[in-house]
Structures are given as structure tokens and as C-alpha cells.
């Protein structure tokens, strides 16, 4: 799907769903998050700056950090339409759809078949099970899932066959998934030229995301590359795929394993959009254990490779992992996450260093005030090391301590 078609698709789906709403039943949920931030000292990458935190020095200290609407429309017993609309203030009041798809899930006595067709998240994360792919644990997602949120999306069809535990009087749920898609060719760009960053800014369909004015982009080899990424655009015309499996034991222990390959042809460039196809592939493994009704651990790791250019002039391995602990009592939830991410530069283009490291600790405390209102505070320590900063006279290392207070309304 190219950008133009994608835009038309997204623009027409929701009004169509809304029109159909008079004939069919559905439900609408939404959230509004009002946040006060401690802003980073640098301008954020979303505004084309060098800052690694979402809200940099040109952001408002108090804003609606995110508002969402999630709609479901039941078209028949098995078919339903789904769309998630999102507003974010950065960089300049962006409104769009993060997901829009049709779901086919017929009633089944034993094995469950399910298919999704459209634009949607692969279900790799165990950190983002809440409304509109948000996290019930911390405000800012781990760098790994933040990257999925900004550069990974399926524009195609996913098929799942599940053996649900209860229907087989078994302790184990098992399911196998596979998807084919287009329109995810530039995924990997931000890892090379910004590095991993923990944040909660999800990209909407057809979005263009800025990053800093890198020295490397002045080189003739990269003259065709824009100082931005359009992560969901189609460049090489090839299909990508992913396969995955989910295993659960009594819903206490959950494992998700995925292999993702966008099958990008790194030699192809779209001169009009100034985007390359990146050959991006990775393993993603997520694990969750509930130690009790109150306490759980979540771990997730990703490792892979991304490359662009005819001779893989940019060629990077990457890996990222986090461990999170979350505990609830009364109306409170406390969550703490430690994470480490790394981009390893493998290519011979000396003028374009891509190596970076991101370490972060995030602690969040939330209180549910009522069925609709929740308040919370989050502290994040962010330590990044990036080899692409010294060529423009900046320190390779950067440290940030970030506070955020958020009031969230949900319906």
C-alpha cells in the first residue's frame, strides 16, 4: 500500500463504519491523558532535535499528552470493524489513526480461527494490553515497544489458529500466527539515526517522523535520504511477513515468540518520498509471570538486523531488553522497569556512525480514583550514548532525569 492509498483507506474507513453504525451495534471507548512534564534540555527528535525524551525544551510543560478513541462495530456474528484514532500534541497537534482493521472471528467449538485485515499492531508486546495499545504499567513504554509503536505496523492480513485451554479442558493455551503485509519498508531508520528511546508516542498511519540533522545526511551517499522517516510507506513493492506463537499456562505464565521480516530490498529508494527500503528482521520474545493476583513480572527481548543502501551501506545489528515488576494493592499500582538497548554498527561507511546505547530505569505509581479517573507519577532516568553526536560537536553521552504527572480519564 503506498502512502496515497493508505491515506484514502484510513480516511474512508471510519466514516463508513460510522455510517454503518445506525444499522449495526458497536462500542466506543476513549482516553484523555493530561500531563505535566519535566522537559528535556534538548529539542525532541519529534521536532527534529537531538533530545532523546519525547517532550523537549520547546514542548509545553502541561499538555494533553495523548487522547484516543477506540471504536468497534459489529457487522455480523463473526465480522467486526475496529479503528483507533489518536491525538498527540507533539510536534504540532497530530491527529490520525493508529489502527484500522476488520476482524473475522467465527464462533468455534474447539479450535479458534481469527483473522485481521487492515492496519494493526502485531501482538508482540505484553506491556501494551490496555486501550489503544497503551500500557497499564508505565506511561512511557520500554524503548523496545516504543520502537514497535513508532515504526512497526502491519498493513495486510494476519491469520491465527488457537487451541484455547478451556475448550480443550487443558492448562495450556496455544496459538500460531502468521501475517503478510506491505508498507513497512523504512522500519529501522530511527534505530540507525536516533537509537532506542523509551517513550509513549505512537505513530499514526501515514505519519512522517523527524530526527536530528545528522552529519551523515550531508554525505553524497545519503543525499537522497530525507531527515525524516515515513515508517509505513511502501518502497520496494515486496511483501513482508511475520510468524509467531503464543503459549499460556493457566493464564499465569505467558510466552510470545515472533520472527519479523519486512523483506525489504535495501537497494530501492523512493525518490519522491526520499525513503529507502530497509531490510529489517528481528526476533521478539516476551514473557510474563503472575506471581499472585497482585504481582507480576514482564520481560521482553528483541534482537535483529536492519540495513539500507545498495551495498548495505548502513548495516546495523540491534538488541533491546527490559524487565518489569508490577504490583497492585487497593487502588494503587506500582511498576518499575529496567532496560538496555544497543545498536551495533557493522558497515564500512565511516561517515555514518550508528552505534548507540540506551539505558533506562522507569518507576511509576498510579492511583485509580474512580471508574473513570486515574492519577499517577512517573520518574525516568535515561542514559544514552550515541556515536552520531560527536561529528556535529555534541557529547556522545547524555543523561536525563524526567518527571511526569498524569491525570487520565477513560470511558
Amino acid at each position, binding site marked *: 500500500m503506498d502512502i496515497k492509498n493508505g491515506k484514502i483507506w484510513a480516511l474512508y474507513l471510519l466514516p463508513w463504519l460510522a455510517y454503518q453504525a445506525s444499522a449495526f451495534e458497536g462500542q466506543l471507548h476513549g482516553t484523555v491523558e493530561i500531563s505535566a512534564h519535566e522537559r528535556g534540555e534538548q529539542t525532541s527528535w519529534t521536532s527534529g532535535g537531538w533530545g532523546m525524551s519525547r517532550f523537549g525544551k520547546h514542548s509545553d510543560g502541561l499538555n494533553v499528552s495523548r487522547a484516543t478513541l477506540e471504536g468497534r462495530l459489529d457487522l455480523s456474528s463473526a465480522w467486526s470493524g475496529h479503528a483507533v484514532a489518536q491525538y498527540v500534541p507533539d510536534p504540532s497537534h497530530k491527529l490520525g489513526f493508529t489502527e484500522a482493521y476488520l476482524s473475522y472471528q467465527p464462533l468455534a*467449538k474447539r479450535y479458534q480461527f481469527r483473522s485481521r485485515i487492515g492496519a494493526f499492531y502485531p501482538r508482540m508486546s505484553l506491556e501494551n494490553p490496555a486501550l489503544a495499545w497503551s500500557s497499564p504499567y508505565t506511561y512511557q513504554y520500554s524503548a523496545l515497544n516504543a520502537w514497535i509503536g513508532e515504526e512497526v505496523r502491519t498493513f495486510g492480513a494476519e491469520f491465527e489458529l488457537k487451541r484455547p485451554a*478451556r*475448550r480443550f479442558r487443558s492448562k495450556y493455551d496455544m496459538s500460531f500466527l502468521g501475517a503478510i503485509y506491505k508498507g513497512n519498508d523504512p522500519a529501522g531508520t530511527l534505530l540507525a539515526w536516533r537509537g532506542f528511546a523509551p517513550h509513549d508516542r505512537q505513530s499514526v498511519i501515514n505519519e512522517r517522523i523527524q530526527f536530528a540533522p545528522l552529519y551523515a545526511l550531508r554525505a553524497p551517499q545519503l543525499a537522497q535520504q530525507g531527515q525524516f522517516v515515513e515508517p509505513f510507506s511502501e518502497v520496494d513493492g515486496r511483501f513482508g511477513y511475520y510468524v509467531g506463537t503464543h503459549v499460556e499456562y493457566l493464564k499465569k505464565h505467558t510466552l510470545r515468540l515472533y520472527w519479523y521480516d519486512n523483506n525489504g530490498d535495501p537497494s530501492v529508494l523512493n525518490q519522491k518520498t526520499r525513503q529507502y527500503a530497509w531490510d529489517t528482521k528481528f526476533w521478539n520474545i516476551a514473557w510474563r509471570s503472575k506471581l499472585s493476583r497482585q504481582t507480576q513480572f514482564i520481560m521482553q527481548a528483541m534482537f535483529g538486523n536492519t540495513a539500507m543502501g545498495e551495498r548495505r551501506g548502513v548495516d546495523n545489528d540491534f538488541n533491546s531488553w527490559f524487565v518489569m515488576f508490577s504490583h497492585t494493592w487497593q487502588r494503587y499500582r506500582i511498576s518499575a522497569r529496567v532496560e538496555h538497548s544497543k545498536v551495533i554498527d557493522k558497515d564500512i561507511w565511516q561517515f555514518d556512525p550508528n552505534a548507540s546505547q540506551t539505558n533506562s530505569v522507569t518507576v511509576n505509581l498510579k492511583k485509580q480514583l474512580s471508574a473513570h479517573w486515574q492519577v499517577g507519577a512517573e520518574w525516568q532516568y535515561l542514559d544514552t550514548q550515541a556515536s552520531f553526536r560527536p561529528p556535529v560537536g555534541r557529547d556522545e553521552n547524555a543523561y536525563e532525569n524526567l518527571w511526569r504527572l498524569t491525570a487520565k480519564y477513560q470511558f
Partner: protein
Amino acid sequence: MKKVIGLACFFGFSCQALEVTVKDTLGQPLAGAAVWLEGGLWSVEPSSLLKKYNMGQKDRNFIPHVLIIPQEAQVEFPNFDSILHHVYSFSEPKAFELKLYRDKPQAPIKFTQSGVVELGCNIHDWMLGYILVVNSGVYGLTDKQGKIDLPLNPEQLGSVNLHVWHERFEDLDKPESQVLTIKDVSQKVQYQLKQPLLEKFDFLTDETDGY
């Protein structure tokens, strides 16, 4: 005599009830077993069909987990969650499906055929509930001590079919039965299962499941 029974009831003594204790094959008391009496004297009373029976959904579980209703009764399916449930049954006595939104109740369903109706949710596939449709006016579920008091009146004495069912039976469509003679309205009966139960599964679900 009635006064004496009334006084005994007042002081908490069991009275005018058949006390059934269900035990498993190892002799351990069994909670959550459905017990009902079948026979002419214990049949469905028309007034009980006017009663409202509910199989709700709350926190992504069916509440109650097991509901016993007399044949011909109607059941409503209120959804107390803010999210949609897609409730269905493939069971022989009643196959149906309902998409249940909060605050949009569907018309009640009438269960005309006796038997076990197994309920699931197509969205939250761990949700499991049972409706037992019985041809009886005297029924109940055993408590933690494996006990249930089945209220009787002095006219309901005689030979009766005692049925016992539990969700951990291998074949859910085959309740166990025994012929019983009720001689007294405060009789105590012990019933030991003839079959071993399947393993008990404790699923641990919360609001983060289902994604």
C-alpha cells in the same frame, strides 16, 4: 408439631430440609456440586418460572459460575463490564449466541429442554459458565463443606431420584443418579461420587488478559 419445627428453625437447627453432603471418591467434601431431586412430588412449581434468573458477566467471568434453573425458566445475561462479551453455547439443550454490550440488555432466553448448557465468550476464551436446566423444583449447589439443604414440605416424602453433577465430570452430559427414599423432612443423606473427578484448574486472569 409444626410449632416445634418452627422453633427449631428459629434456633438454627436444620428443619424441613433434606441435607445432602456430596463427597468425592476419596471421601473429601465436594463444593460446587449441583444436586436436584426428580419425581412427581418434586416437580417444577409454576411460580418458580416467574422468577428472574441471571447469568451475569463481571470482571470477565460468568457470575454465577454455575446456575441451576427449572425447565421452562427464562434467563437474562446482564453485562456488568464496560467491554463487549460475545456469549455463546453449542450445547444440545440450547444453542445460542448473544453480543452483550454494557447497558444494552438482550431479551431473556427461555430454556425448554433439560440438560447442561456450557457457556463461553468468543472474545475472552477463558470465560466458562454453566446453566443446568433441571426438571425439578428442588435443587441447589453444595457449599465448601459439600453440603446443601434442599427445602421440603411434609408432603414431599417418598421415593425420589437424586441427581448430582459437577463441572469436573469427564462427561458433562451425564449426571450421577441414585434412588433415594425420603422418610423425614429433616433427613441427612451422604452421597459419594462413583467417578473420579478431572483435575482442578485455577486460571489466574486479570484486566490485562485478552490482548
